[in-house]
């Protein structure tokens, strides 16, 4: 059962990621990315991180799905095409580099000896209670640091976008 879910959603995520890379218009890319995020959230669920899946959809996909189109609409990027010609060489070279990167990463995956935990998913393991216990005790400093980052980002973004 887990396998079916995994293969389905990983397939969706890969296809949507491909659409992100390949779509000519940014708005299409935005929608494809939202789809990708949702399917990855499903993968999180399969892996037992239920809270994280929820957060991913609400926060991450929500931001992307809402804010990016707002910016797109505001900025009227229909005129956005530079006078410079695009030789297309970079695309080919980048594709090559990407393939090499994937090869290296895949090799790294199979070289590292990671054994999956044999036990099936315990529903409570990814719950808020368990996660927050870890987060607020062991990971307190990064947690607070994240809060500081959010705050400074807020201030920074507000200042940047002022007239």
């Amino acid at each position: 059962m887990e396998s079916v879910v995994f293969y389905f959603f990983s397939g969706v995520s890969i296809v949507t990621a491909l659409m992100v890379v390949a779509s000519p218009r940014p708005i299409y890319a935005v929608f494809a990315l939202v789809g990708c995020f949702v399917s990855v959230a499903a993968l999180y669920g399969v892996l037992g991180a239920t809270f994280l899946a929820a957060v991913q959809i609400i926060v991450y996909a929500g931001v992307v799905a809402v804010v990016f189109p707002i910016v797109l609409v505001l900025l009227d990027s229909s005129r956005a095409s530079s006078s410079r010609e695009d030789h297309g060489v970079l695309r080919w070279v980048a594709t090559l580099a990407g393939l090499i990167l994937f090869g290296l990463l895949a090799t790294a995956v199979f070289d590292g000896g990671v054994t999956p935990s044999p036990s099936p998913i315990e529903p409570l393991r990814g719950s808020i209670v368990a996660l927050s216990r870890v987060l607020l005790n062991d990971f307190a400093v990064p947690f607070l640091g994240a809060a500081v980052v959010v705050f400074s980002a807020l201030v920074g973004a507000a200042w940047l976008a002022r007239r």
Partner: protein
Amino acid sequence: MSMASRLLPLIPLIPAISALVLTWLTWFGGSIGRARAGKLASGAVGVSLILAAIGFAEIAGSPPDARAVTVELFDWISLGSFRASAALVLDPLASVMTLVITGVGFLVHVYSVGYVQKEHDVHRYFAYLNLLTAFMLLLVLAENLLVLFVGWEGVGLCCYLLVGYRCQKRSAIDAGMKAFVIDRVGDVGLLAGILMTFVVFGTVSFQELLPLAPTKDTTAVGIIGVLFLVGAIGKSAQIPLHVWLLDTVEGPPPASALIQSATVVTGGVYLVVRTAALFAESPLAFGLVGAFGAVTALFAAAVALAQDDLRRALAYSTVSQVGYMFLACGVGAFGAAVFHLLTHAFGKALLFLCAGSVLHAMAGRTDVRGMGGLKEKLPVTYRTFVIATLGLTAVPPFAGFFSGNQILWSAFRDRDFLMWGTGIVVTFLTALYMGRLWMLVFEGRFRGSGIEMGPSGEPPVTWPLLVLAVGSVGIGFIGIPHYSAIASFLADPLAATTHEAASLAAEGSLVLLNVAIAASGLLLARRVYRGEASSSRPAAEEAVRPEPTLGWLRGRFGVDALYGRALVRPLLFLSRTILWRGVDRTVIDGGFHGSARLIRAGSEGLRLFQSGNLRLYLFVLFAGVVAMLAWMMLGARWAF
């Protein structure tokens, strides 16, 4: 000793102060009077001359062991184990050099007074001339390599200033720049040599390091020698760094006279002679000095034959003669090299001053094909030119005979027949090209067009020419073989050893051979060019003779034409086409231009890194990360 040591620092100092005063006058003096500027400058050098003579007298009067007067001015650099003081030393070698520099320099200054009257910036000219003299004196009086380097660089600077003096002319500016930059190339070698000297010897003072030479590793000493040689090649305009000297003719002719005779180009020879102990230790360095000298002397003499510009021909002649001095060093005859430096200084300075006269009369035209018959218009110039020519071409009893002979003899008795043979050929070629110039400029009929020859046409001051002419004759007698006062004065280490090994007959016959060769060169030139000097074009030099048979039939021209075709024309072809255009212009000049173009192309390529193209920057980042990852992973897998 005390008088010399008190006066010694003044020798370079007085012209330097004079230069400063003249510089101040350039800005604020206005019309103080051009004659006064010239007289101040000449006077300064004259005072230095007197001081140099006093120093010389004191040195000469001392016993041979104690012939060095050292004056330490102040402690200049003291960093850890490196100590260099600002010190001057007057020993026989330095004394001879200072006399030549101040003597010839004085005469050139005086001549310039009359010559540059029409220039509007006369103070600047004399300031530069004085500065050149001052720096050159500093160079030869230096007690250590650092002070020498200061003088060396200063001389290079003054070359740039003097050659580019007529700064309104684009070609003059370019020539000055060229002189400075190419000299710089050689300076890299000198600087590297100085650094290495400190590393190997622990000191840069001549008095300390030269006696230590035999105790050091031969390879290291040899490398130092080669590096110094590089510097000397740049400063003395040897192949392949000779190209700057040819363009110095853009400057005023008296300046060329000073640069090419007594100062700049002699700096390299001085360096090699001063550090002779180093060269004596390394056969490689020794051989290289001789090789460069021989090749340069031969090449430049041949190319001089093909030059139609009077000043350029003389410039190539200087290159050749300085090469001859290096050749002398290469066979161990350091004393002979200095002697030749002395005789050449007089002769070449005189030739350039005469060229100045000729130029003056010809209103700036320098092509010898458009001259001729000037011996009536410029009598004093003519006579002194002839004397200088005879001096340069080693005809007895003129000075060049004694010094050139000394060099050839040194080569012969050391069984270095290659060098000796080169010297013989150079002598012949020298006679040939000088004879050609003599004939084409002064003899025959005036062949120019469109110039009205004015009366006399000589510059107002001609007595320096006479003095130099006397010098050209007389100076040789201090070097008569077997009584060579100059060799023993300079304590030439190799002069004494092999004197007894050779027989008088061998030496005598060699002398006769030299004279015969020189004379034949002159006579050939006279034969070939005399007829042409009267005709409207030098027919012997034409590549295409439209009616050869007609020329052959023409009575008295017959033999001359034969000489022309058989001997001169092939030689000229060699000189003009192959050596001048082919080697000199294409290879050597092309080498310089090509390296400049290469650097520019490299810069254009490197410019792409600064294109501002964000995607390119990002991609380089990305590719770098991937490459690093690959490196690490491959390393982990295959355990590099």
